[in-house]
């Protein structure tokens, strides 16, 4: 899980953030401002500063926020001026938007605020629907508005061209002031509370957020129009209220609760995708009618509240149908405020010590969690040269905040008589400077109680330090320091409480002395927090946080660091053990090999029962006995045979396979059974695997692990895959590697690729790419990028079949889709009653299979549902407001609006499921990717940069910096601007970068080199025969692409016989591999099959024939790691044509030598 931040404000108004991977609070450097409140989400943090203005801190990202402005320049032809800006009076503006209706002069485009800057000047777009236009970018038509073409015809009377310019949001990682402008001028009063959320309401537009704010007068304002391209939003809208609000909380979804001055709560109803601000309020009583509520915090399906007596309450029965819930449950702990973050995790600030507490044990099934645990990590500013000032300010600020809570309770009790509570709070807030100065001698009644409070609230540091004390006995020095300090503080505490200045001074001297002794921990070390926001903090019940024990946290962090500095593998003790064991073998065994062994090797049989798919009539699963016999083969290699005993017509029969002939063991997608298939080369050819199902997942994993180890042993394969390995991925997301033999590319008699042996590597990916020096990246179904750690095993490979220190947890998320189908009838309109001939009213995409919400299961037992079914609006072709798509009949093309001819409609429902596994993969946060490519390079030094390019899931082109052999994950992304989203990218020999845009056009990136890793500009390469391209792969001298029909093409646009292709891959030494759609074997048809093009030569890029390998659900293959030079048998007739590509680069032989090749070989 990538690191994310917990935000908090201390009682001085300083903003701190704590990383989920970190162990100390980092002071947010924009220290000019003091903050009152914060509300964080993953991409940004909103806050109210002491000036009551709202500030926005957008977190910097490697991909900048940039917005494309566009304008059209329109011209009409006349016989005198030819094409000119002289338009007819009835025509559109000379400068307009795309519709022509709006006047858009270039100088009329203004930056929305000072937080934006222009990226460059206006320029002309010379790409028209995927095809390059002529210089000037003009497109022609008969008249406005009409169909435009890039060719000028005899009847082209008008023309237009598109100008584009980018503006970029520049105020990242800094607090940018948001003007408090409503739709009609400035807002009447300043803000008092703020809450951000609502990102789960809709994915369109991207990064959409709801922001709710409360003014000092108790009014509620909603800020609309906040999304990725307008992080600041548009303007404030007032929301009508049943009373005056003090505080509001907005969850990630449609939950919004607020607290009224009188202590009741109000719940917003009617929040939908189309109406994110909701429609009405419902009042909910305070948990305790005697004691009003002062604070509320909501998540996706939880509501927490704090009453004036600081009691914490949890609301039962909250769900999307019932945002009000059903009842309150009192919780343990006294808190002043609570924040609900991602995954409904909870943070709070305790009344007693003002520490931040984390609610432990919050899971989707136990939303109320188990216990509060204090977050006790130091702040980065804890070493201060002179702590006397902060000690005194601590005192005053402590007064101030305890006063606030008290003030509210006092005031609402007196709300009938006391006229203006807001004023009091306002005064309190605005008074803070004076209070700080004269903290000891103020006369406001609330404050008289505060010294005592402050005393109670600043606990002796002995508490904070107790962990070190308890760990102390082994280390006497430490315990003395602790004791001394505790005593010091006991003396200091009351003094500070009294606010006696002389005592404070003496304290400071003691403190300095203490700091000298110990450095990190001063008596005022314990931070007092005022506000916390976990809205951007992604943790769940499995996350390991190092936040809870500062002293051990420190020591353990030191340990962790020392481990990472000297990786466990190189530790001296380990080396010593390895060396000594080697010496021991030499001493005790090597000279005595002729001795007899005490135990004779024997056959070991493992037996079990399984189900076997009998693939002849009647096709069914039959119970079989299954056995693996292992023995030592003739050359000492271990070998074995698998047997499968079954009954046929009362007769006992068996099937068997030699372990050394098994080419792959592959888990098969099945939503109810734990299924896997065993292939041999012969069975691959026939497309006829042995399919088996185990009773439990455990049992299948035990068998798979055992069989897999057995297969590897028989082939002498162990440890991690080599750098040359060929990687592939099945449609189930399972990862396989194969060690390439040089003979695979041998010419003219290559080894058939159905003989390749594949073994599984733990993890779950959609796509994998590698290069020949061992850099491997993968992308998950949820677009997360993963880098290979160099390990092996993980997943169900445990113990011996798995490496230990480079296996990590990996998760993946994908959506399952079902369709709701309806037919129109004249009486009732659209209903779920179809014609007898119609498809199921709930079906899959094809309509052939019934898929109801209740019966649809996740793709395999490994997946678990993580959301409920929800209408999916992101369907190609668009939908109406309820997600429906219309058509004349099933199955035709659907459109997102209803016409008179539409008799049927459908909408797509999506539900997300999640898989958790382990494997040799580490996440590369934070940008989700849709494609990645790595330069296949030769041997190089470990520090040399390896070019790696990627495309984000939003279509941004990215170039990774800092990728080396030592740091295969690289360091940061460099954004490469494009005029439209991209979908495929490939980098080949001599750093040639080719890419395919979403509109199917091909681009070449110019001037990419080591010095200029991102190149300088894109060249639009016309697509072959106006084909829309889908994927590109670049070798050393040739570029291969796939068009949208799946036809593979070459630079000179040879087109193969139509062979559908999912994915294909080209290595440097001209190896062409693809995944073909369908391949026919003697027993069945296999979809998604690995194919290898034979006879591909630099001079003959087309090759000669396909060789078919493993298949049945393969999705992806990469051969870009394989730079093994193939042995070539030179045949006289071919010699002239053949020039092995590897020799081209490695040793360009003079022509004479090549001709003498035969002679040399003889």
């Amino acid at each position, binding site marked *: 899980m990538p690191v994310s931040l917990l935000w908090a404000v201390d009682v001085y108004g300083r903003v701190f953030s704590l990383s989920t991977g970190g162990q100390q609070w980092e002071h947010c450097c924009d220290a000019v401002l003091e903050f009152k409140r914060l509300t964080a989400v993953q991409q940004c943090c909103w806050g109210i500063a002491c000036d009551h203005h709202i500030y926005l801190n957008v977190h910097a990202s490697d991909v900048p926020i940039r917005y494309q402005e566009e304008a059209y320049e329109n011209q009409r032809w006349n016989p005198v001026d030819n094409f000119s800006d002289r338009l007819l009076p009835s025509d559109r503006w000379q400068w307009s938007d795309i519709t022509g209706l709006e006047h858009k002069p270039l100088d009329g485009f203004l930056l929305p605020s000072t937080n934006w800057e222009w990226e460059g000047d206006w320029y002309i777009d010379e790409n028209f629907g995927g095809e390059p236009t002529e210089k000037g970018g003009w497109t022609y038509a008969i008249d406005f508005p009409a169909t435009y073409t890039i060719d000028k015809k005899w009847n082209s009377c008008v023309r237009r061209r598109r100008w584009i310019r980018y503006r970029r949001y520049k105020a990242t990682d800094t607090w940018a002031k948001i003007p408090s402008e409503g739709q009609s001028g400035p807002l009447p009063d300043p803000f008092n509370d703020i809450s951000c959320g609502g990102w789960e309401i809709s994915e369109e537009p991207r990064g959409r957020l709801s922001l709710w704010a409360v003014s000092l007068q108790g009014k509620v304002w909603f800020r609309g129009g906040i999304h990725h391209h307008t992080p600041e939003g548009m303007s404030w809208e007032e929301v009508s209220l049943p009373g005056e609000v003090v505080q509001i909380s907005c969850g990630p979804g449609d939950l919004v609760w607020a607290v009224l001055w009188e202590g009741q709560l109000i719940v917003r109803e009617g929040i939908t995708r189309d109406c994110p601000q909701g429609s009405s309020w419902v009042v909910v009583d305070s948990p305790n009618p005697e004691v009003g509520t002062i604070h509320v915090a909501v998540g996706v399906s939880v509501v927490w509240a704090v009453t004036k007596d600081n009691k914490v309450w949890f609301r039962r029965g909250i769900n999307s149908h019932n945002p009000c819930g059903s009842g309150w449950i009192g919780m343990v702990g006294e808190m002043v405020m609570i924040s609900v973050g991602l995954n409904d995790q909870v943070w709070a600030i305790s009344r007693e010590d003002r520490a931040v507490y984390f609610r432990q044990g919050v899971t989707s099934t136990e939303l109320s969690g188990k216990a509060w645990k204090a977050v006790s990590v130091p702040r980065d500013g804890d070493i201060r040269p002179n702590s006397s000032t902060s000690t005194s300010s601590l005192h005053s600020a402590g007064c101030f905040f305890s006063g606030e809570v008290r003030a509210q309770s006092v005031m609402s009790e007196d709300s009938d008589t006391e006229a203006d509570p807001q004023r009091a709070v306002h005064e309190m807030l605005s008074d803070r400077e004076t209070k700080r100065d004269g903290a000891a001698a103020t006369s406001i009644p609330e404050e008289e109680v505060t010294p005592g409070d402050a005393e109670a609230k600043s606990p002796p540091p002995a508490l904070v330090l107790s962990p070190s004390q308890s760990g102390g006995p082994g280390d006497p020095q430490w315990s003395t320091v602790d004791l001394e300090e505790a005593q010091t503080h006991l003396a200091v505490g009351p003094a500070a409480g009294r606010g006696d200045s002389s005592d404070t001074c003496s304290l400071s001297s003691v403190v300095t002395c203490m700091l000298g002794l110990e450095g990190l921990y001063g008596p005022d070390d314990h931070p007092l927090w005022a506000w916390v926001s976990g809205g951007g903090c992604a943790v769940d019940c499995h996350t390991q946080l190092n936040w809870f024990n500062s002293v051990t946290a420190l020591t353990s962090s030191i*340990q962790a660091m020392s481990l990472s500095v000297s990786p466990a593998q190189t530790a001296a003790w*380990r080396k010593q053990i390895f060396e000594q*064991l080697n010496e*021991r073998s030499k001493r005790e065994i090597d000279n005595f090999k002729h*001795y007899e*062994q005490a135990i004779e090797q024997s056959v*070991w049989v493992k037996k079990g029962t399984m189900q076997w798919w009998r693939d002849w009539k009647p096709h069914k699963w039959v119970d079989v006995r299954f056995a693996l016999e292992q023995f030592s083969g003739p050359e000492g290699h271990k070998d074995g045979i698998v047997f499968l005993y079954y009954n046929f017509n009362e007769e006992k029969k068996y099937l068997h396979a030699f372990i050394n002939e098994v080419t792959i063991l592959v888990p098969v997608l099945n939503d109810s059974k734990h299924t896997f298939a065993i292939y041999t080369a012969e069975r691959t050819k026939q497309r006829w695997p042995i399919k088996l199902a185990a009773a439990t997942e455990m049992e299948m994993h035990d068998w798979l692990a055992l069989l897999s180890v057995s297969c590897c042993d028989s082939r002498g394969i162990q440890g991690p895959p080599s750098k040359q390995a060929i990687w592939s991925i099945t449609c189930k997301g399972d990862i396989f590697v194969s060690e390439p033999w040089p003979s695979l590319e041998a010419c003219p008699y290559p080894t058939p690729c159905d003989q390749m042996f594949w073994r599984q590597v733990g993890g779950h990916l959609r796509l994998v790419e590698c290069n020949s020096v061992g850099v491997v990246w993968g992308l998950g179904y949820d677009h997360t990028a993963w880098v290979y750690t160099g390990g092996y095993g993980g997943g169900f490979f445990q*113990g011996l079949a798995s490496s*230990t220190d480079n296996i990590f947890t990996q998760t993946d998320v994908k959506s399952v889709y079902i369709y709701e189908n309806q037919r129109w009838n004249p009486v009732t309109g659209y209903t779920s009653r179809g014609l007898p001939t119609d498809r199921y009213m709930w079906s899959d995409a094809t309509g052939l299979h019934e898929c109801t919400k209740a019966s649809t299961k996740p793709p395999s037992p490994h997946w678990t549902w993580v959301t409920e079914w929800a209408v999916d609006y992101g369907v190609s072709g668009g939908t109406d407001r309820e997600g429906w798509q219309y058509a004349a009949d099933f199955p035709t093309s659907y459109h997102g609006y209803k016409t008179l001819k539409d008799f049927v409609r459908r909408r797509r429902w999506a539900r997300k499921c999640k898989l958790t596994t382990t494997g040799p993969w580490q996440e590369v946060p934070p940008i989700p990717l849709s494609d990645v490519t790595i330069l296949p390079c030769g041997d190089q030094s470990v520090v040399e940069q390896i070019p790696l390019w990627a495309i984000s899931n939003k279509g941004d082109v990215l170039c990774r910096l800092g990728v080396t052999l030592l740091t295969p994950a690289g360091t940061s992304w460099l954004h490469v601007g494009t005029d439209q989203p991209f979908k495929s990218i490939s980098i080949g020999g001599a750093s040639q970068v080719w890419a395919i845009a979403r509109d199917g056009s091909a681009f070449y990136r110019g001037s990419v080199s080591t010095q200029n890793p991102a190149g300088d500009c894109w060249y639009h390469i016309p697509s072959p025969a106006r084909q829309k391209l889908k994927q590109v792969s670049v070798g050393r001298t040739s570029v291969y692409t796939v068009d949208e029909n799946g036809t593979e093409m070459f630079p000179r646009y040879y087109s193969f016989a139509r062979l559908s292709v999912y994915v294909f891959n080209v290595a440097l030494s001209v190896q062409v591999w693809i995944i073909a759609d369908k391949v026919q074997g003697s027993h069945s048809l296999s979809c998604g099959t690995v194919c290898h093009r034979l006879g591909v030569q630099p001079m003959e890029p087309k090759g000669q024939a396909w060789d078919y390998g493993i298949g049945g659900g393969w999705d992806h293959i990469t051969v870009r790691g394989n730079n093994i030079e193939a042995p070539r048998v030179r045949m006289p007739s071919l010699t002239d044509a053949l020039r092995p590509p590897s020799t081209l680069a490695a040793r360009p032989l003079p022509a004479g030598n090549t001709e003498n090749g035969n002679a040399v070989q003889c």
Partner: protein
Amino acid sequence: MIADDKDVLRDVWFGRIPTCFTLYQDEVTEREAEPFYLLLPRVSYLTLVTDKVKKHFLKVMKAEDVEEIWFEYEGTPLKWHYPIGLLFDLHASNTSLPWSITVHFKNFPERDLLHCPCNSVIEAHFMSSIKEADALKHKSQVINDMQKKDHKQLWMGLQNDKFDQFWAINRKLMEYPTEEGGFRYIPFRIYLTMSDRPFIQKLFRPISPDGHTHTLGDLLKEVYPVAIANEAKRYQVVIHGIEPLLETPLQWLSEHLSHPDNFLHISVIPAPSD
């Protein structure tokens, strides 16, 4: 060359001690008994792997002269219920190989040795050690969750010298919750040649209360500080014939250098005088 922790397990399992068995001079034989040479697995038990030895010597003896077999090295009766590697490290390290063991068929030293009438006695001893170790490591949870056939597989793995068969099950005994960073207690025994006590065994955790990783040195400091007293090296601390550095984490040792009975058998022996 070892590259991976996994290889340590293999090296430990496949450790062998070349041994020369000779018949005790006073045994009555019909003709002269030739010595018998054998590679003994370090992790196994003497009586489990010496069927061949027994057969060899019985050929030259009369049935009535044969009682229960036992072994002796330089006057010390060898306890069959200690792993062979431990016996060697404890009594015969720093001597020349092969290890020469004297075979007796008479005068069973009742005070020093347990009887071993059949392999099921070894199995019972082995399984009880594993159970004791798991009680220390996991409050017996792992071993109790296993099925009878898994227990059998552990034993058969040892008996037939099947590394994969044994480790397929044993790995479960070596797991622990990541958040705890190790076992509850480390199952270990420290053997001293110079002492009357057979061995030292105490409760010792892999991680200190304040989160430090305990090392071999920490263990010895706590349990038998003499072994690592700073003066000129008087003792060797030997596990599986090697001397791990004192900073080696105890948890790692327990996972990788334990015997199949899941105990870390540590020998503290006097350092050779030269």
